[in-house]
């Protein structure tokens, strides 16, 4: 996609200009909050939506003007869009029938796909008689039977219940690896994005915020939006300031407490040295609190939630929270914010206690308070 644009007749700019390269065989996830334009991008790739500007290239061929029929792509819809009047077998065979594929070949291919997706017993049923999970697999089968250049998936798991979703998520990942077909997958669910994608592209209001591997997105978010969108519970971000910087390290001031970064921790955020005296947004992942740490921070525990595999402590800290919004960065007016710490289930902390949590300064993040851009190495 080169400067891909989508403008509607009423002047609304859904996608102002998107540059994105998808590699052969890659599983790329487009993720973002609802209304971020991810489905529009997918529909433009599919040919279901006109492209207002820029170029869309598939295998170096510009396909802007081609209809969906000519692009050799397959798509799995959120609603599955199975043809209700056809049996499962006919649904899967439909594309090949339209291409006048040899009957024996169609039969063999359908049988093969049905076997792969465990649909053999229901081949003669109509979609109306299937369970949600089976319908989802038929939609997958319809896509993979043709061995297209590109798979497009538009929130294919959102109509499944939570348990089935986790199971199907893994199945789709395995299937994609096995078939090796380039895949673009749209979801609003960051867990799906992180677990499935080789790379994840985070979109906001039609703009690409960051595209990177899931590990990179988590550990090295390019801006506040990505930092808070990826991860659950999301990253704690509060306003702090750079108190001082010298060759041996950087000192931060958060909620009246000082944090001293030295060595690698200071090197990672050396961009802060130029901002002495300025306000910054400091990000701390819930997982970076109360583990192996080289510093500490005092908080008041309000609530402890037991999750089984861990505990979540909701704590108060005397610093305004910083939040990424649709229009930019918003700093709370209250000089107090909630910070969540992800703890070991055996941790004995209780609500109402004032405690000091250890903090790993190597896992701190810093952002500009006006633009939200990450501050890293200078």
């Amino acid at each position, binding site marked *: 996609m080169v400067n891909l644009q989508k403008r509607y007749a009423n002047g609304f700019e859904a996608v102002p200009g998107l540059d994105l390269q998808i590699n052969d065989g890659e599983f790329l996830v487009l993720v973002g909050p609802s209304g971020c334009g991810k489905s529009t991008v997918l529909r433009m790739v*599919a040919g279901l939506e006109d492209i207002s500007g820029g170029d869309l290239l598939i295998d170096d061929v510009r396909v802007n003007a081609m209809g969906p029929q000519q692009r050799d792509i*397959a798509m799995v819809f959120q609603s599955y*869009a199975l*043809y*209700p*009047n*056809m049996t499962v077998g006919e649904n899967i065979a439909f*594309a090949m029938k*339209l291409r006048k594929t040899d009957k024996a070949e169609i039969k063999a291919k359908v049988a093969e796909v049905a076997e792969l997706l465990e649909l053999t017993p229901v081949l003669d049923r109509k979609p109306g008689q299937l369970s949600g999970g089976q319908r989802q697999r038929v939609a997958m089968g319809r896509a993979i039977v043709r061995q297209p250049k590109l798979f497009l998936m538009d929130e294919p798991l959102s109509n499944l219940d939570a348990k089935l979703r986790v199971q199907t998520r893994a199945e789709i990942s395995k299937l994609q690896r096995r078939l090796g077909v380039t895949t673009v997958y749209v979801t609003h669910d960051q867990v799906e994005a992180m677990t499935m994608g080789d790379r994840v592209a985070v979109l906001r209001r039609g703009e690409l915020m960051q595209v990177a591997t899931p590990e990179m997105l988590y550990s090295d978010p390019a801006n506040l939006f990505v930092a808070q969108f990826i991860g659950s519970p999301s990253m704690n971000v509060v306003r702090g300031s750079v108190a001082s910087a010298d060759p041996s390290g950087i000192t931060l001031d958060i909620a009246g407490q000082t944090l001293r970064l030295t060595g690698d921790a200071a090197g990672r955020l050396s961009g802060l040295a130029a901002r002495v005296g300025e306000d910054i947004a400091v990000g701390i992942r819930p997982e970076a609190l109360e583990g192996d740490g080289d510093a500490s921070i005092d908080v008041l525990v309000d609530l402890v939630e037991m999750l089984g595999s861990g505990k979540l402590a909701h704590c108060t800290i005397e610093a305004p929270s910083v939040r990424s919004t649709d229009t930019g960065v918003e700093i709370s007016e209250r000089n107090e914010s909630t910070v969540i710490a992800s703890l070991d289930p055996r941790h004995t902390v209780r609500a109402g206690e004032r405690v000091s949590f250890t903090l790993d300064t190597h896992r701190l993040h810093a952002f500009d308070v006006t633009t939200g851009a990450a501050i890293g190495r200078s």
Partner: protein
Amino acid sequence: MVEILKSLSVVAVGIIGFIAVLGGLYWLASQLPEPWRERARVAVFVGPALILLVGGLIIPSIVNLRLSFYTGNGLSPTKWYGLGNFRDIFTNDDNLMVLRNTVWWVLVVTAASVVIGIIIARFADKMRGEPIAKALIFLPTAISMVGAGVIWNFMYATKGNDPDKQFGLITYFWMKLDPILPGHQGPNYWLQDKRFFGIDSNWLPGVNTFFIMAVIVWIQAGFATVVISAALKGVPDDLVEAAKIDGATERQAFFKVVLPYVKGTIITVATTILIAVMKIFDIIQTMGKGGSFGTSTIANEMYEQSFTQDNKGRGAAWAVLLFLAVIPIVFINSRNQRAMREGR
């Protein structure tokens, strides 16, 4: 004025009386001991409807069936004729023509109305001004058959030999075609023309029958368009998009995905029109002069035999035939309704 008030007061007294009787019966039923109370209440409410159904439909049907085995004049013919009336229907040339006409009516009008309905619904969909266009197309459905007959009598009217003096629109255009088309397009009394553009066949109705059919198509296509259009709007966009991604052209997507999706609605529309066409009567009366010039149909013949020819037995036999012919359609329709309810 006094007359109107009188009629209104009679109606009012009737309604109040009916309510009073029902209320009284209901009150009486409520006084009964338990096992009988509920049953009596049901009887009070279902009773009147049942009486109307039995008295207005079932008994007349049985009387009609009996009548179809008799012959003779007068209100109640007494001469036993067995299946004679039916034999006459299936052997007499005039009667066979009536059957032939009805078959043509059913095939042509139903098919044409449904096909035109589908075509208009398809191409009007998402067009600018669609609601107005559909309202105009639907308008004829609201016109009474007699009214439509009168209007179209004017359309087909012929007056003299001068094309410019014609007030019948069809005749006017027909005569204007004379210099363009081969052959002679002279003035024609369409509704009296028993032949089909010069072809005289026992199997083919005259041009007059087809011209009368056109009026019903004009009426029924509006109904078909509106209902089918509503069904088309219910087809999820996803389905068409999926078909396109699967490689279907617009046309293939329409025929292989969209039409099958609305199949149930099309069957309902077709059977509804079919039944209406089988009972076609008023338009034959107004445009075919009561079935003259070879335009008669079963329902028209039923009336003509019973009341104009005073042959109640034959009229009853036509009615029995009509009833038998409708049964399979009702059956198809109810099966289709069930299939639609159970989901595709």
